[in-house]
């Protein structure tokens, strides 16, 4: 299997052109293999969940918390779903033609790319000034949580740290998607200089052939990586034990019980006034 494709410039130089589209199949395979492996593990493993009585006791002790706790505001939810639509459009317009579904995809692709760019800019501003910016990132402080999560996965009853607002898996996924999406957006914006759009005067010589090659390869690598990541994301979104997270991305709220069962109240402090109903 090739990883990169090469071409020849008018000066006879060998130049990078694209990633090999074999990598698309590799990414698809990796995504599907991961979800099969994970699903099998979840069926067969001794994955430890918090006991119902334990959660009952915590809920009885924390009647000061509102019954419904806001997890995502309207802005965050609109961002998520617009970004998801743009991302799926980008992946479909990029890869359907490669697998044989032919259509005029370029205009749809760059429009979706601009929508994705706009949502990312919005998200950065929103998260920086209106959200707890650091709650989504991972760092050395999360190593104890990582150890505890691994031990729980192997059936141990570990009292160690529970996640704050975002489970460790969410935060690791966010880190991966940030790297892939920023790579694909940054390179994609430059690649738009090579196609006809209302925004730029075409300039195929903005970079040297070799720099363009690196740009296209980076865009392609990030793109095929996103295929596998999106498969994994959708898989977790529809898994029974994760649906409460997905529902919170639709409705904005989780229940007090879900909050106490899955989060560490010391790491995610709920300070908003009580709410009785989901709006």
């Amino acid at each position, binding site marked *: 299997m090739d990883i990169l*494709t090469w*071409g*020849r*410039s*008018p000066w006879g130089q060998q*130049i990078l*052109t*694209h990633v090999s589209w074999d990598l698309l199949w590799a990414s698809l395979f990796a995504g599907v293999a991961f979800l099969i492996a994970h699903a099998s593990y979840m069926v067969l493993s001794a994955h430890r969940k918090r006991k119902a009585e334990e959660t009952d006791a915590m809920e009885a002790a924390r009647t000061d918390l509102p019954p419904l706790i806001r997890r995502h505001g309207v802005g965050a939810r609109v961002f998520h779903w617009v970004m998801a639509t743009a991302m799926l459009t980008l992946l479909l317009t990029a890869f359907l*033609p490669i697998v044989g579904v*032919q*259509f*005029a*995809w*370029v*205009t749809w692709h760059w429009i979706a790319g601009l929508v994705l760019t706009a949502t990312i800019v919005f998200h950065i501003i929103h998260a920086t000034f209106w959200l707890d910016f650091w709650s989504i990132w991972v760092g050395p402080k999360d190593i104890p949580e990582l150890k505890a999560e691994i031990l729980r996965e192997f059936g141990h009853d570990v009292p160690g740290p529970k996640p704050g607002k975002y489970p460790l898996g969410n935060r690791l996924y966010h880190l991966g998607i940030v790297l892939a999406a920023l790579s694909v957006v940054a390179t994609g914006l430059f690649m738009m200089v*090579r*196609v*006809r759009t209302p925004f730029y005067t*075409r300039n*195929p*010589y903005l970079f040297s*052939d070799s720099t*363009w*090659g690196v740009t*296209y390869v980076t865009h392609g690598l990030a793109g095929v990586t996103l295929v596998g990541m999106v498969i994994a994301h959708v898989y977790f979104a529809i898994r029974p034990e994760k649906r409460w997270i997905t529902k919170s991305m639709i409705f904005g709220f989780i229940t007090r019980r879900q909050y106490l069962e899955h989060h560490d109240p010391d790491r995610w402090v709920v300070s908003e006034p009580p709410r009785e109903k989901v709006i």
Partner: protein
Amino acid sequence: MAVIRDVMPAFELFQPASVSDAQALLKRYGGEAWLLAGGLDSFDWLKDRIKRPAAVIDLSGIADLKGIKPWGDGGLEIGAMTTLTEIVRHPVVRERYSILLEAAESAASPQIRNQGTVGGNVTQDTRCWYYRAGWSCYRAGGNICYADTPQAINREHAILEADRCVAVNPSDTAPALIALDAQMVIRTGAGEQVIAAEDYFVGPGTDITRMTVLKPGSLLTSIRIPGTWAASAEGSGGAGRVQFYFEKIRDRNVWDFALVSVASAMATTGTTIDRIRLVVNGVAARPLRLAAVEDLVRGKPRNEATAVIAGNLAIEGAQPLTFNGYKVPLMRNLVKRAIRGVEDVDWTS
């Protein structure tokens, strides 16, 4: 740039005697197979060592792919390996489909028409020299169009439907076949497929590496021309008298590809245009049927005023490159001439 000519890379040569044998070879070699019709486009690619197929499948020995026979209600079926000269000389083509005769006769030179086939003529690759030089342009799987740069020599390139690539379709018979509402018969591994001629050609937005819908394993076997647009003084397939117009503009009057060509089939009652199919080539990567212009002129009188508005509508959206701006008025005027005709009319542009 091609550095070696006249010495082709080694390949396996197959000369099947039947379509099924050819298909078996196509299945065996897939994308590594090269179909050889008249060889006029193929040998350039092979001698320049730009294309390096593992197997060349010479179709010249397949009798089923040759000849012209009646088809349907007054139509014709032309085998894909029928030569352009055979088409030019065929009495029914001369009598009823003179637009195809004109188009085929305008291709290249007599020697080339003796060898070149209608299947090869509609399926040939673009003449963009940047692409044919073997550089890694979009059409060759790369990430740049060398013809669409400020310094490029792009006098012959596209003014419409450019999508990264600005190559144009070089076929002379293609616009005539689309004007006649022809159907392309394709054999694939899944069986026979019949598609409209205008859908046979694809632009770069849809597939930047192909000029037609043919994929590895597919074979164009014949072209069916319905009787609907057969010319006659009394009309055919519907009301009105069917008239054709074909014109090819090129740098020299023999042995050259079209800068722009136009083909129309028009049914009129008196001076009113009842039905029309209008196609231009040489302006995009596929022959363009001008459906908006057809809609505009249908029901209108065939005169100068109608021709002027048709010509102006035809070029809407044209985006010339550095050196091909002349194609815009050329296309507009050819459409005008196709609508109005050129007999007894003072030529204005």
